[in-house]
C-alpha cells in the first residue's frame, strides 16, 4: 500500500477564506478585461506589450512549477530514490504552477478565441520560439497530470488502471524531464530576437542555458521552501534531514549558473556596463547577490545544517531567479519612444489571484489526496 496519505485537516480555515476572496477579486477584474479589453485593466502599452501577466504568471510562474521536473531528474534519472517522499508534493506544485500559467496565457492573449490556431498544423510556424514553448508547455501540463494521477487512482481505488499506468510510467517520466528542459531553455531563446533592444547585461547567446539551469535551481528551491512551510504550518515532522542532503546539489547548480553568467559577461567585455549607475544595474546586482547568497548557504556544511539558513537560501534562490526573469524580460529591455510601465492595481490583483488560486488548490489537494509522505501526514 501507499505510504502517502491525505492530511486530515479542515478545508475551511481563515487562510483558505482569504485565498478565496483574492481569487474572487481577480475574477472580477478578469471579467472587466474580457468585456472592455486588456487596456481597461492592465497598464501594458505599445512600448511594453508584455506586462506581469506574461512575465510573472508565465515566465516566473512556470519556473516555480519546476519542482516536479527537478525532483524527477534527481529521483528517476540520477536514481536518488531516497528523495522520493518529496516527489508528490513537488509534482503537485508543478501541476498548479503550469496549469495556472497556461490559464494566465489565455486571459493575456489579445485574441484568445483564436488560440486553437496554435494546434492547427497548417498554422504551425516552426521557426517561432513561442510556438515551441506553447506546444511544449501544453504537453507538459498533460504529462504532469498523468504523473500525478496515481494519487487520484489510489484515493479512488482504481488499482487496475494504476498498474497499467505504472508499466508505462517511464515514458511519462522521461517526457516530464525532456519537455521542461526544452521549454524552460526556450523561454531564454525567446529573447534572442531582442538583440537590439535588450541590455548586454542580459542579452547573450547563453540565454537558453541560463534560463534552464536557473529553472532547475528554482525547482529544488520550491521543494525546499514548500517542505519547510508545510511541516511548520501543520506541525509535521521536519524533512530537513532529506533537504539538507539535497541542498548540496542545488548549491553546485547555483555555482555553475553564476560561473556561466559572469564568465560570459567577462568574455563579452560586458562587465563594465555593470558599473554604470542605473536602476537596471542595481537590480542586476541584487539578482546575482541572491544567487550568490544561496550558493554560499548550500555549499557550506554549516549552512546546510541550519534549517533556518537553508530555508532562507531557498527563498534567496527563488527571489534571485524571479528577478533574473523580470530583469531579462522587462527591466533590462529598452522600449522605443520612452514608454514606461508599472503594473496597475487591477493587473496586480489578477496576478495575486492566480497565486492565491494555486495555494488554495494545493491546500485542498494535500488535504484530500495522498500527497504528503504517510508517516508524517497521519500523525
Amino acid at each position, binding site marked *: 500500500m501507499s505510504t502517502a496519505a491525505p492530511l486530515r485537516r479542515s478545508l475551511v480555515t481563515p487562510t483558505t477564506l482569504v485565498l478565496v476572496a483574492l481569487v474572487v477579486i481577480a475574477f472580477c477584474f478578469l471579467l472587466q478585461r474580457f468585456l472592455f479589453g486588456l487596456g481597461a485593466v492592465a497598464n501594458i502599452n505599445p512600448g511594453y506589450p508584455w506586462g506581469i501577466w506574461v512575465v510573472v504568471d508565465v515566465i516566473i510562474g512556470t519556473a516555480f512549477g519546476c519542482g516536479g521536473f527537478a525532483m524527477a531528474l534527481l529521483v528517476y534519472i540520477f536514481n536518488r530514490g531516497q528523495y522520493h517522499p518529496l516527489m508528490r508534493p513537488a509534482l503537485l506544485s508543478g501541476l498548479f504552477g503550469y496549469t495556472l500559467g497556461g490559464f494566465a496565457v489565455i486571459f493575456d492573449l489579445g485574441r484568445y478565441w483564436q488560440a486553437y490556431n496554435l494546434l492547427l498544423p497548417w498554422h504551425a510556424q516552426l521557426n517561432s520560439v513561442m510556438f515551441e514553448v506553447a506546444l511544449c508547455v501544453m504537453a507538459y501540463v498533460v504529462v504532469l497530470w498523468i504523473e500525478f494521477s496515481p494519487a487520484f487512482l489510489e484515493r479512488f481505488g482504481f488499482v487496475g488502471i494504476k498498474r497499467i499506468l505504472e508499466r508505462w510510467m517511464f515514458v511519462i517520466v522521461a517526457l516530464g524531464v525532456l519537455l521542461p528542459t526544452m521549454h524552460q531553455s526556450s523561454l531564454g531563446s525567446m529573447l534572442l530576437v*531582442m538583440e537590439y533592444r535588450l541590455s548586454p547585461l542580459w542579452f547573450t547567446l547563453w540565454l537558453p542555458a541560463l534560463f534552464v539551469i536557473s529553472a532547475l535551481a528554482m525547482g529544488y528551491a520550491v521543494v525546499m521552501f514548500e517542505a519547510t512551510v508545510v511541516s511548520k504550518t501543520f506541525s509535521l515532522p521536519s524533512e530537513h534531514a532529506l533537504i539538507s542532503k539535497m541542498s548540496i546539489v542545488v548549491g553546485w547548480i547555483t555555482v555553475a549558473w553564476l560561473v556561466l553568467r559572469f564568465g560570459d559577461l567577462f568574455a563579452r567585455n560586458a562587465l563594465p556596463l555593470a558599473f554604470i549607475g542605473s536602476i537596471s544595474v542595481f537590480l542586476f546586482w541584487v539578482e546575482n547577490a541572491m544567487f550568490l547568497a544561496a550558493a554560499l548557504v548550500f555549499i557550506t556544511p554549516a549552512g546546510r545544517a541550519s534549517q533556518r539558513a537553508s530555508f532562507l537560501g531557498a527563498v534567496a534562490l527563488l527571489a534571485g531567479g524571479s528577478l533574473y526573469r523580470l530583469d531579462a524580460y522587462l527591466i533590462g529591455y529598452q522600449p522605443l519612444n520612452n514608454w514606461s510601465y508599472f503594473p496597475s492595481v487591477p493587473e496586480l490583483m489578477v496576478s495575486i489571484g492566480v497565486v492565491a488560486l494555486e495555494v488554495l488548490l494545493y491546500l485542498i489537494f494535500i488535504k484530500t489526496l495522498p500527497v504528503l509522505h504517510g508517516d508524517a501526514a497521519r500523525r
Partner: protein
Amino acid sequence: MTEVDRRDFLRGAGFATAAAAVPTEASAAIARPPKQISPQAVGMLYDSTLCIGCRACVAACKEANKMPAEVPATLTGWNENTWDSAEDLSGRTLNVIKVYRNGTAEQKDHEINGFAFVKRHCLHCIDPSCVSVCPVGAMQKDAATGIVSYDPDVCIGCRYCVYGCPFGVPQFDFSSALGKIAKCEFCRHLQKDGKIPACCDVCPTGASLFGPVKELEREIERRTAAAPGTPYQFPRGKIGENRPPNAATIPTYVKGVYGEHEAGGTQVRYLAGVPFPKLGLPTVGRQSPASLSEGMQHTIYQWLIAPLVAFVGFAFLARRNLALHHDDDAPPSKEG
C-alpha cells in the same frame, strides 16, 4: 504632430556602443544565413528633405485602411473627432509624421537650430522579425513583392511581434475587447488592383515615393551622387510613372541610407538631412535578429536529434530506476 523625443537618441547611442559587447563572430556563427531580397520586391523611398509635414499621407492612410481618427486627450475640447492628430503609431494609426526640432528651429533639415520631418510605418524588412516570431504565421512575407502582411483571423494576440520588431512598428489595440494588431501592409489591397499605396499617391512633393526596390536604389544613387544645389526633377507617386515631377534642388544629405542595412535590410529606405537617430529612427545593427534566433533554434533542434536522443536516454534510465524501486511505493533505494 509629436516631437521626436531627444532621449530616444541618447538611449539609442548609448545602446549602440553597448551592443558592441555582443561578440559578432559568435553570433554570426550561430545565425542562419540572412534572407535575400526578392528581385520583384516593391518598396518606398521616404526623403525627409522633401517632406513638408502636410500629413496628407496620414489622412490618406486612415481613409485607405478605414482606420478611425485619433484625438489626443489634450485636444478633445475643440477637436470633435473630425481632425485626426495621431501622435504616434498605435492600434488605430498605421502611419505618422513626426517632427525634429532643435534650438530656434529656423532652418529645415538642419541639425542645429533646425527642424525636420520623419515618417514612421512598417519598413517591410527583408528578414522580418515579426514573421519569424509569430507562433501561428499570422505575419507573412510575400515571396515576390516582399510585402509583410497580417491576418487578424489567424492572430492569437500574443503580441510577440510588438515586442520583437526592432523598429517598434506593430501595435496592438488595447482599447478594444476584440483588439487586433495594426501595422502598415503597404496598402496591399490597393496594389492588388494595380494602384499604389495611398501615402505615396497623395504625397505632393514626392517625399514618399513608391516603386520597385531596384529602381528606388538607383534613384537614391542619383540623388546622393549629385552635388547639393543641383536642380533636380524629383519623381512623385510611383517611380517611372508619368506624373509631373517636383522640380527642386538637391539638398545636403547626411551620410547613409536608413534601411539599407538595418536588421538585415528593409524595403523602405530613408534619406535625410538630419542624422537618423535624431529623427527617432532606432539604432539597429546589420544582423537580422530573426536569423540569430532561428539559427539558435535550428542548432539546438536540428532534425530533433538532440531531443530524441535525450528522450531515449531519459526513458532508459527512468525505466531501469523505476524497476529498481519496483514502483514509487517501494522503500528508498540504498544508493545515494
